[in-house]
């Protein structure tokens, strides 16, 4: 009942219209010159004090990228991106040697977290309050502010458990062998245009290593935020769960309002060994552009997990409400026998937003199983596409997939599209696909309004009901935030 209560409160508490998190902080920036060439990559690598192998890896990716072409198969439409007009490196100016502890975190940054509505206890953590007072409800935050991580918390508790949770640039220096062993093994440098670009220029992101048999003592969470004008952000995340380990990772994003389109091309790689479990949850709320689609974020992301070990499990849960363009397919490669892949997704588009999102489940191991639950909601003049691939390789005996794809239309000028690819090369493998498309019916709205609900509350209630199967997969704090986001992003979509 508690969850249900908070659902209602969350829906009810949202009354503001427009993008409520559109603001900029005034932290001084330190830019690399515009444009991309090998010298810029050398500069990034040098700034990050990276080992030689890392620079070579980046250059290899860059050389692959210059020969590649931007993909155009997705159902999205945008003016050409001039990759030479972007800055590829920006870092907040460091005060003296940079914040070594939380007390030294820029107060501007803490204020920004407050505006973002980061839960009080996490702000307190960021503000340096004694972690002991938060035992039991711990959330560690590795805050990524533009390209450089400025705050890392709970390191001692994590270290005690043997967990490594740090900025990836630090991991490249401090845990070089681990990074070198796994980086690019799930998403190779030449995987696709945006992944290659990311591999060449990524400046930060998170690294997580959970040792054998360890259940990570807290949810790991990272708040991303794009805040520098004309700075593409290229996050790189690598999570490795060793045999029998468990980890839940939370990623949430908002961005300030602005005019220029912004490019975001992140790469996330997950590796799960025997009996390991990784749960990766995202709430994405980047600026979607104004009602005419001007000024939103372009989000071209490659997320992929490898279930390398037997009985390993990777679960992606995402709630996507933001960005002008979303191009994103969190996927699972199920190598391990009896390994499990899951994808739970809510994608909302309103006004002129475009989303082409879905997943790939590649079944290699015997008895591997996957579940795909996708809920697409389109309003305004937006276009929302589910694109999914389920592939059963000859080795995937008795593998199973279940896919459910539901689309909800609000109004009559939006579009919902479902593009499921199914390839089965094993006769014992089973693939099930269910799809529905529905509209918020006038009589549903009238029924709610007759009982006293405003039109917007009615839409919020109906949409949250539609998404329930996905929202219940989110960790509690995220579920509440996600429900608010759904209501905010659909404001003004009816009538």
């Amino acid at each position, binding site marked *: *009942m*508690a969850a*249900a*209560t908070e*659902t*209602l409160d969350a*829906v*009810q508490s949202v009354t503001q219209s427009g993008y409520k998190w559109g603001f900029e902080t005034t932290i001084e920036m330190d830019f690399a010159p515009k444009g991309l060439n090998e010298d810029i990559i050398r500069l990034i690598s040098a700034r990050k004090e990276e080992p030689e192998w890392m620079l070579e890896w980046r250059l290899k990716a860059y050389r692959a990228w210059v020969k590649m072409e931007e993909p155009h198969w997705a159902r999205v439409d945008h003016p050409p991106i001039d990759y030479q007009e972007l800055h590829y490196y920006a870092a907040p100016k460091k005060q003296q040697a940079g914040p070594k502890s939380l007390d030294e975190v820029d107060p501007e940054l803490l204020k920004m977290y407050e505006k973002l509505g980061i839960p009080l206890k996490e702000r307190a953590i960021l503000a340096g309050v004694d972690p002991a007072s938060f035992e039991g409800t711990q959330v560690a935050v590795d805050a990524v502010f533009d390209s450089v991580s400025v705050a890392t918390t709970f390191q001692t508790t994590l270290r005690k458990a043997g967990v490594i949770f740090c900025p990836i640039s630090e991991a490249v220096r401090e845990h070089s062998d681990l990074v070198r062993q796994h980086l690019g093994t799930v998403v190779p440098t030449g995987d696709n245009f945006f992944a290659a670009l990311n591999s060449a220029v990524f400046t930060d992101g998170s690294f997580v290593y959970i040792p054998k048999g360890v259940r990570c003592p807290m949810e790991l969470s990272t708040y991303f935020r794009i805040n520098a004008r004309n700075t593409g952000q290229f996050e790189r995340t690598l999570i490795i769960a060793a045999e029998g380990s468990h980890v839940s990772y939370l990623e949430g994003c908002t961005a300030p309002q602005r005019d220029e389109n912004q490019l975001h091309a992140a790469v996330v790689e997950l590796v799960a060994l025997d009996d390991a479990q990784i749960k990766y949850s995202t709430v994405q709320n980047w600026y979607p552009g104004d009602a005419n689609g001007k000024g939103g974020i372009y989000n071209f992301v490659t997320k992929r997990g490898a279930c390398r070990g037997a009985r390993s499990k990777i679960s992606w849960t995402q709630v996507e409400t933001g960005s002008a363009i979303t191009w994103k397919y969190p996927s699972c490669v199920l190598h391990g026998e009896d390994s499990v892949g899951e994808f739970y997704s809510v994608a909302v588009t309103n006004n002129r937003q475009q989303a082409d999102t879905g997943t790939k489940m590649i079944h290699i191991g015997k008895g591997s199983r996957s579940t795909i639950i996708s809920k697409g909601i389109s309003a305004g003049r937006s276009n929302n596409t589910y694109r999914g691939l389920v592939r059963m390789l000859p080795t995937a005996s008795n593998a199973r997939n279940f896919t459910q794809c539901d689309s909800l239309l609000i109004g009559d000028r939006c579009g919902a599209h479902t593009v499921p690819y199914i390839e089965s090369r094993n006769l014992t493998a089973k693939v099930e696909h269910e799809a529905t498309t529905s509209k918020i*019916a*006038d*009589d*549903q709205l*009238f*029924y*709610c*309004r*007759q*009982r*006293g*609900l*405003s*039109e917007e*509350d009615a839409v919020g*209630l*109906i949409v*949250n*009901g*539609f*998404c*329930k*199967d996905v929202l219940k997969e989110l960790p509690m704090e995220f579920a509440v935030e996600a429900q608010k986001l759904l209501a905010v992003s659909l404001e003004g979509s009816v009538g």
Partner: protein
Amino acid sequence: MLEIRQLTASVGGKPILQGIDLAVPDGEVHALMGPNGSGKSTLAYVLSGRDDFEVTGGSVTFNGVDLLGMEPEQRAAAGVFLAFQAPIELPGVNNANFLRTALNAVRRAHGESELDAVQFLKMARAAARQLAMPDDMLKRNVNVGFSGGEKKRNEVLQMAILRPRLAILDETDSGLDIDALKIVADGVNALRGPAFSALVITHHQRLLDHLVPNRVHVLAHGRIVRSGGPELAKELEKSGYAGLIAEAA
């Protein structure tokens, strides 16, 4: 007091209501009968504010306030409740959440404090018990997977919880067995009092045995052709509408 004067309304340009005059004073329950297609449901929708119906003339006031100028949710806040002939399904929306959201919206409109989940559930469970409905009715999704009878009973439960000042029941008794019929009647009877009135649309005298109306009106071709006491319904049960309509024409 509900006062309808010379009300005319059409759907897609086709006139349905052709000059309705009807008053339901506070504290009274009126039955509205009449053949299929006479405009009973249209009247129910026009009173509750469904916008597929175009009001072309006349007026409707409730306690002196113009109802026709209000949005559906404002009418709900003013105390108007419609028990739907075909209740709508809301997939994934829990009945208790739905009702609490609705109740709190109405309470807010009255400047009253909202009920928290615990207060609400206590109240809702009591209401369900009084209507001999199982608790799990509250946990299920609104009308999803409900039988026809359960949907109708759920409307009565909603009415019991929202405690309207004017209840319009659109054939809530249709398709119900005797026990369920009694639940509907009990639901209305429990709300009866000086500040409550109801307009009960029905085809059957059966319901009116349990829910004795102050007045009975017969609607035909978009007009009220006859009004009378409870005995009128009994008369109709014997002789049907045909003679009455011919007489009026």
